[in-house]
């Protein structure tokens, strides 16, 4: 299934262009015109990938995207472990997002940690008709009574809240006052806002700014003595423990991580972050907003990094160290040297099994570009990629630092397009989400979920790279893919001879 080595870049480009034209044929004219802007073949040297992004999904096409609530509750706020996040509205949203993102944490669940609980105001018809503010008041009171060790509450708005005119900000203010200044954060992340999860990230970032930062008195004493080496990890959701296998490297190089946003994070860590000397930003898409804000307001620089695969890890460790003195720079080199034998062993073991294999990706956040390096470390090639909810700045980064000439680019891909692309390109591996997994496996194409790490992980850092390599090998080289055709169907039928 791998690309024939004889295929030239020009041939690949021509085939990909043809593929795009082919899929567009299925659409009514208006839709074809709109979708055409989201599909392209990457030209090396261009500053972006040549696609439009962050636009409304087209009705009826089977977009893979989610909503603003998913971006706020599901991504940004949900992992803050010592706060209770109320899914405010009908029961479904909280139910479908309950515990499915694998944001690992340590705590006593239900007593001082609440990530894997589903708190909802479970709206009924009367709440829609008469408004839900009174119910919200009562919900907060009941939380206070039954979960007294919670350190704060967020209100994650579902669609109806914004439509029926509830004033959750007023409720939050009043209840905060009543409970001695307790942090209560209203979040206007109704699912119909914006075009995808992305606006939910932004709204959630703004809610931290307005309802956490602005509440902390600038003169308030920090819980700890600051050091020149204090950093915060921003935009790591600790899926399968990613933030932990990243944190350990930063600490080993001599930095002190004072906060994790937001995987295994706590309210105290959010509040302490303005004391950081540097914010290190992994998922740019979901948390660049708050990083920019901290830069403007508190003068904290921020630095994007990539902890997928050794090549990018080395680059990132040096980049981060560049913000500090020689002690840290030496620390970075020490860390790189320490893990080199592991990297060599992992590559020696897995690269021969994966060399030359092709991958198509479709994911959210940072992964459509960030994981490319890790595949390349294993000798694999990413031949197609796209963002569920990326913006143009994501495509710029992708074009300038990651993808190769001729890569097929598909923004907010539809179910139909993705199937046709994979069918024609026949990559050795597809990396996407749960909704796509079984579609491609049925087609006989190996697959890994690249949102949840297919219940594995971590994939970040050196420890994560070993797991990543093992998992990709396991997917591609599973013996099951040789069994998808019944043997009696493979046998060519004997041709009848003229005399018969």
């Amino acid at each position, binding site marked *: 299934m791998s690309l024939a080595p004889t295929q030239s870049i020009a041939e690949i480009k021509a085939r990909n262009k043809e593929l795009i034209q082919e899929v567009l044929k299925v659409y009514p004219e208006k839709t074809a015109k709109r979708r055409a802007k989201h599909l392209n073949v990457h030209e090396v040297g261009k500053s972006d990938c040549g696609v439009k992004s962050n636009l409304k999904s087209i*009705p009826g096409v089977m977009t893979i995207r989610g*909503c603003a609530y998913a971006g706020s509750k599901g991504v940004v706020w949900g992992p803050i472990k010592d706060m209770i996040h109320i899914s405010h509205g009908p029961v479904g949203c909280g139910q479908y997002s309950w515990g499915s993102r694998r944001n690992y944490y*340590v705590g006593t669940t239900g007593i001082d940690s609440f990530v894997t609980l589903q708190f*909802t*105001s479970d709206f009924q018809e009367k709440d829609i008709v008469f408004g839900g503010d009174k119910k919200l008041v009562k919900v907060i009171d009941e939380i206070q009574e039954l979960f007294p060790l919670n350190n704060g509450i967020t209100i994650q708005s579902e669609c109806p809240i914004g439509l029926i005119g509830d004033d959750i900000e007023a409720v939050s203010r009043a209840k905060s006052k009543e409970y001695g200044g307790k942090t209560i954060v209203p979040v206007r992340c109704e699912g119909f806002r914006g075009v995808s999860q992305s606006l939910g990230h932004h709204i959630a970032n703004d809610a931290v700014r307005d309802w956490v930062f602005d509440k902390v008195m600038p003169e308030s004493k920090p819980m700890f003595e600051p050091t020149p080496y204090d950093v915060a990890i921003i935009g790591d959701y600790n899926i399968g*423990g990613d933030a932990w296998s990243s944190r350990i490297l930063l600490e080993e190089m001599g930095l002190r991580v004072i906060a994790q946003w937001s995987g295994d994070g706590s309210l105290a860590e959010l509040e302490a972050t303005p004391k950081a000397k540097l914010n290190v930003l992994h998922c740019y898409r979901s948390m660049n907003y708050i990083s920019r804000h901290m830069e403007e307001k508190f003068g904290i620089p921020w630095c994007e990094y990539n902890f997928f695969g050794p090549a990018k890890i080395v680059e990132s460790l040096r980049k981060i160290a560049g913000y500090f003195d020689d002690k840290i720079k030496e620390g970075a080199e020490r860390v790189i040297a320490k893990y080199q034998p592991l990297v060599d062993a992992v590559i020696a073991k897995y690269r021969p099994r994966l060399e030359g294999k092709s991958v198509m990706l479709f994911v959210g956040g940072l992964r459509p570009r960030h994981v490319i390096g890790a595949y390349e470390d294993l000798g694999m090639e990413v031949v197609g990629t796209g963002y569920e909810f990326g913006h143009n700045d994501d495509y710029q980064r992708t074009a300038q630092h990651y993808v190769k000439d001729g890569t097929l680019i598909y923004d907010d891909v539809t179910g139909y397009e993705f199937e046709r692309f994979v069918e024609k390109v026949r990559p050795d591996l597809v990396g996407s989400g749960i909704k796509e997994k079984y579609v491609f496996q049925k087609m006989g194409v190996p697959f890994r979920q690249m949102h949840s790490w297919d219940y594995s992980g971590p994939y970040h850092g050196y420890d994560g790279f070993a797991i990543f390599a093992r998992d990709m090998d396991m997917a591609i080289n599973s013996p099951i893919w040789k069994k998808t055709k019944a043997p009696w169907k493979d046998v060519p039928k004997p041709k009848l001879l003229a005399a018969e």
Partner: protein
Amino acid sequence: MAQSAEHVLDHFELFRGPEYQQMLANKKKMFENPRDAAEVERIREWAKTPEYREKNFAREALTVNPAKACQPLGAVFASVGFEATLPFVHGSQGCVAYYRSHLSRHFKEPSSCVSSSMTEDAAVFGGLNNMIDGLANSYNMYKPKMIAVSTTCMAEVIGDDLNAFIKTSKEKGSVPADFDVPFAHTPAFVGSHVTGYDNALKGILEHFWDGKAGTAAKLERAPNKKINLIGGFDGYTVGNIREIKRIFELMGIQYTILADNSDVFDTPTDGEFRMYDGGTTLEDAANAVHAKATISMQQWCTEKTLPFIADHGQEVVAFNYPVGVSATDEFLMALSRISGKDIPEGLARERGRLVDAMADSSAHVHGKKFAIYGDPDLCYGLAAFLLELGAEPIHVLSTNGNKAWEKKMQALFGSSPFGQNCHAYPARDLWHMRSLLFTEPVDFLIGNTYGKYLERDTGTPLIRIGFPIFDRHHHHRSPVWGYQGGMNVLVKILDKIFDEIDKKTNIAGKTDYSFDIIR
């Protein structure tokens, strides 16, 4: 550094190593502003007390860990049970991403469904244009034979009129005028996924039987010998529907399964992705009006559909998720009575085998106390089976159960000497169940995957039966209905009972006795 290429450690082992443990302890102490450990312990203990239970049960507004989902999930589940049908949910798109993920995580199968992707402007002006464009796109791209429309709460709050919208869309040429687009309003703030199942199924039958929204003549019922069967929202639909078909065929009954999604949630891996597979043909759906009778396997999934069918002149019979000997007996006898066909000896043999198995194992189940939670019919069916086994379903809780369900459950308990200490809890959630398990402990808990949190907190061993099951694979492929299904449930319960006995007696040098090789 513990990681190695030779023996790759993943999250199970990696973070238990001393380097990570030290790092996490440090993080907590230095930066998390943790609660005092003694205070955490005190609250943890307090949350187990009758006093806490009382406060917990006094909740009026807050729901914690509910065992129910919202209407459109049920609508999507029912819709894909028709031949080449694409579910189309009118409203915000994130909802559809959630339903698809939820169903895929349970069945380990693709789940195809589209949304009309309404955003702010549609919230202001209504979603008509989204419907017009959406239907045209879906029709062209996915070539369905039918598009079944339901709604998210967004569309319901702003009051979009599906009937009018679909009519306008057809006038605008989105789909041909005679293309089938049944619909159902499925507000998430009313009922639960079982209500959505009911509404969607009724919408589809209404479409075919009552003149396709005024575009065709109503069907004239010409009674035949067929029996319709409705499975209801069921995590075991794949195994159960196939078992029901086998029984119908053994009995020689002509039948139509309505909303038959047993194939679409169980397609082969053979190189081809089948977006549509199996399902009730549209012709059969229409002709179902002529059937002699309709049987619903789940009363609470068909509260509107069954009266609708009865109004068309058919006999309707509702069961409550029949599991076990007597419930299956009643089901088969109803089939026999309606069809006039005898119950074949083969099924009597199967019955005898289930009774045989229950007799063999009875001593291990008899007198055991259980808690059950789930959809109202599932709870009823499982509780009835436990009573047959001489076990006691002490706490039976259904978040989407109502007062009528409670009454029916209490009547069931009243009918058995083993039901005397049993209670039904309608409209309660798993945080209530937690208090019940702490204050009135039982031996085993039956529920879906989310019961694992209760198992961890209260130490009550969990037997996974229900929906969703995310963390065990393939259970949905085996039936729980019919005598053979009853056997599967029995084995599942027994396996857990024996595992627990072994777990409690496996400390060498301490509990060498009771660690028996024959049980």
